């Protein structure tokens, strides 16, 4: 199990009213992770644009921020993907869109395409802010999946860097694992016992994963385990929302076909309704 550090961070830059907030979030992250920041703009390079970006990021110079501007024209999806690959970007930051009037966020069509195709980790931000909102609580998935061990380790790495104090590991358990259906008191009793047994099994599996995490990452962080019987990928988002998590960390999906988009599962649920900031780890 090797930990992949975030050494380079990329962000797509559009000259919108949100520019300053987006840049500030990205800059803060690159300071936390001591990573190089790539500002990717899809469009013609111009003196004026560069000047705006430089002046916005001036305030971070005292933190020794290292950043680079990249200008390229073309299809936004292709440009951002190709530049992140060329520069070996580890983490790509994308902004979400808020549904009008109500407090609901989703990922726009371009960001969604990038998320699906990106070969690096992706961070989706719902409410970029100029002032830092502390990240206290991180929710991470504890699915039974080969990638999960890596994901949990990275979650602790991120938690340490962002100075979070709680990490909740959510074990989503498919309802189908409970082979008995609730019909009456007798079957209800059976189901309750069966569920307890499964929860116990899942908890011990995750505890085993936690025991392998290096002391330097796990120190001073409260760890909570929460088994949930529900739809994979959806219930964890729901949980992150009601537990008011500041960041949700998930495995990247294994493969993506046409059918997965038509019948959304796992990550696709999260993309249509972002519960909080989401980090998808590659």
């Amino acid at each position: 199990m090797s930990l992949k550090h975030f050494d380079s961070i990329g962000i797509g830059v559009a000259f919108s009213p949100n520019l300053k907030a987006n840049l500030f979030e990205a800059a803060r992250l690159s300071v936390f992770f001591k990573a190089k920041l790539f500002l990717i703009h899809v469009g013609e390079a111009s003196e004026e644009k560069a000047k705006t970006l430089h002046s916005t990021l001036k305030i971070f110079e005292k933190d020794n921020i290292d950043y680079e501007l990249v200008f390229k024209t073309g299809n936004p999806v292709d440009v951002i993907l190709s530049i992140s690959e060329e520069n070996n970007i580890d983490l790509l930051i994308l902004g979400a869109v808020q549904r009008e009037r109500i407090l609901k966020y989703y990922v726009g069509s371009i960001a969604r395409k990038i998320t699906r195709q990106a070969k690096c980790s992706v961070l989706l931000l719902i409410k970029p802010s100029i002032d830092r909102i502390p990240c206290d609580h991180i929710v991470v998935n504890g699915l039974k999946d080969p990638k999960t061990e890596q994901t949990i380790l990275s979650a602790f790495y991120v938690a340490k860097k962002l100075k979070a104090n709680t990490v909740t590991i959510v074990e989503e358990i498919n309802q189908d694992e409970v082979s008995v259906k609730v019909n009456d008191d007798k079957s209800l009793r059976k189901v309750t016992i069966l569920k307890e047994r499964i929860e116990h099994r899942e908890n011990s599996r995750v505890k085993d994963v936690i025991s392998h995490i290096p002391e330097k990452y796990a120190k001073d962080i409260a760890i909570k385990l929460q088994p949930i019987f529900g739809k994979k990928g959806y219930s964890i988002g729901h949980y992150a929302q009601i537990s008011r998590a500041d960041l949700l960390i998930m495995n990247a999906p294994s493969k993506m076909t046409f059918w997965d988009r038509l019948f959304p599962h796992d990550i696709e649920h999260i993309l249509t309704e972002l519960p909080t900031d989401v980090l998808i780890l590659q």
Partner: protein
Amino acid sequence: MIPKKNNTKDFIKCLPKNIFSGFVVSLIALPLGLGLAMASDAPPIAGIIAAIVGGIVVSILGGSHVTIVGPGNGLVGVLLVAVSSLGLESAYVAIMCSGVLLLLLGFFRMGTLADFFPSSAIQGMLAAIGLIILGKQFHIMLAHKIKRNDTIDYLIEIPYTINDAIHYGNKGLIFAALAGIISLSIMLFYSKIRNKYLQLIPAPMWIVILSIGFSYYFEFGLHEANPIAKEYMISGVPAIQQIIADLSFPSFNGIWSFSFLGSVLALTLISSIETLLSIKAVDKLDPEKRRSNVNRDLKALGLATVGSGLLGGLNVVTVIARSSVNVNNGATNRSSNFFHALFLVIFIVFFSTQLTRIPLPALMAILVYTGYKLASPDIITKMFSIGKEQLFIFFITLLVTLKIGLITGILAGVIATLIIHIIINKSAGLFLRNVLKPNVLMFKEYDDTHTFYVSVKHFCSFLNYFRLKKQLDTVPEDQDVIVDFSLCEFVDDTVMENIHNYQELFAKRGGHFDVIGLDKLDTASEHPFALRRILTVPKIIKKNLTRRQTSMEVLAEDYNLTYNSKKDKAPSFLNNFLFFNTKKINHIYNELSHKNSDISLFDIEFSEGEFIAKEVIRTTMLHIDLKQSIPEFTLDREGFLEKVYAFAGFKDIPIENHSDFSNRFYLLGENETGIAKFFNDDITRFFESNPYYHVESNGNALLIFGRERLASVKEIKALFDFGKRLNEVIKTSL
């Protein structure tokens, strides 16, 4: 969680009680079965066959505990159409096919089917069925048989029939109409008279007994022919030999016609809805608080329906009125359903000729009453108090059902509800985007409390209620649940009603069911079931106090008590009393209480039974919190009925050296030695020398009341005094 019990021993111990309640139920099932079958244009015996086959099959294979099955009133409308459009032979085949479909519904675990229909639409459909029954039978009840094509025409012609009946010249018709009117008054006023001897026989059986008695009186007393016209007597109740002889293999000709398939679908839909609604209601009444296996019941009912159709009977469904009578008479398991069938067999074998002495109008009066209960104005006022939009849905369903048919009617109701929800929220997107999402999250909180936390997102209406239900059903009812709607933008009345049912169920079984997050959603009416959305309509209703209330207020001042006239809808402190095990508490009000003592006196409204067997009772009770534990017991005056109950397996506990007390009082309870110890000389003498009250202990509190009606101010004083002195006697003697 309930521990495992010794099943066989318990079963035998409870057998007498179940035979007794099975007998009482069969007394209602007989006239209802005959009447429902005749209302469906089928031979009268068809209803009895359905009850017998259903009772035997479902009691052996079913998954519910205290339900009674038989011919259902909801099906009358559909069966009528099936019999008239297909003919009786094919109608039986349709019944069998619907039985097969019901069986499949059970196998595919479609017990949730009834949850997909908005409650206002179901109410509208049931009211339409009620009007169909009432409209058609009303004319026969007044001895004025007519035949019309449209159900609405029957309703319109009711005034003409009344007019005709007033001007009858024919003696046969006058007597027939009189039989109908008297029977209807028996049905109407029966529940108003709280006499235990009268109540021993259910109202429909009184009608049967009185009309058979009437006919014998004319035959042997006056040596005259029965004055009721021949065509208004029940005809063709075959003897048992004849039923067996008439068995024939059903012909499957013409089963591919459109009307046949429509009938099969309608029969299946209505019988499953009626069954599921009934099971839900009966589970709330079950004294042992068990959970029914709905899917297993559906399978058993399907099989029973196939058998019933084969033998020339109607559809078998779970029926609410008979089931509630069953519970009220002390049934504890499915065997009472079996015995109800057995008693029906006995009636048919031995008394089939007596049944032909029943006049048709008398039987139809029972059905008119049933129909009235289904479509009673109370339902409309209830709908209106939930919200005006509910009334709209209700009437759309009602009118379409009457005009076109049941399936179209309920579909119209569903569509109307959906459109109204979209208009109220000014957004179709809310529903379209989110209807397929698994919007319910439940998990057990892993801290000390182990509470089940349920969060619902987006919206919760009849469209996706089944997801919430699925999660809630996996929680044992003695646990704590919190349902959080704070992420919801819209919650409809169907969900609110069901949530309310869960709250009652959890309260009865010792759990807690809390709902949070509704405060930010507002309602248009004050009713607890009103649908909730973001909107502000403040509404303040101020009520005047009645005379009794003002005199209670004065009394409170005189005696230094606090008086509260407000209704308390969920008096949880009453749930542990045995008395309320099979009764539903509506609310308590007019509460008088001492500031620093544990005695409180209040008026209470509760209901017993469901549907046509439903009786709403208001009475005044006294509650004493003893702050110490005593054995659980029930104490009442000894009477004839208790002797009857003693046959059925209830035991009176004798108190030594106090034969006067033992003779005059009837003492019940499980912990016999504890009770005998508790009733020491002081307490026994206190009861011997004071007026009679029904006294019940739930282990740490006493419930005391006199008659089953509200107490006058004088009686309130007496009751209060009795309670105070009893409290002191118990305190000093313990």
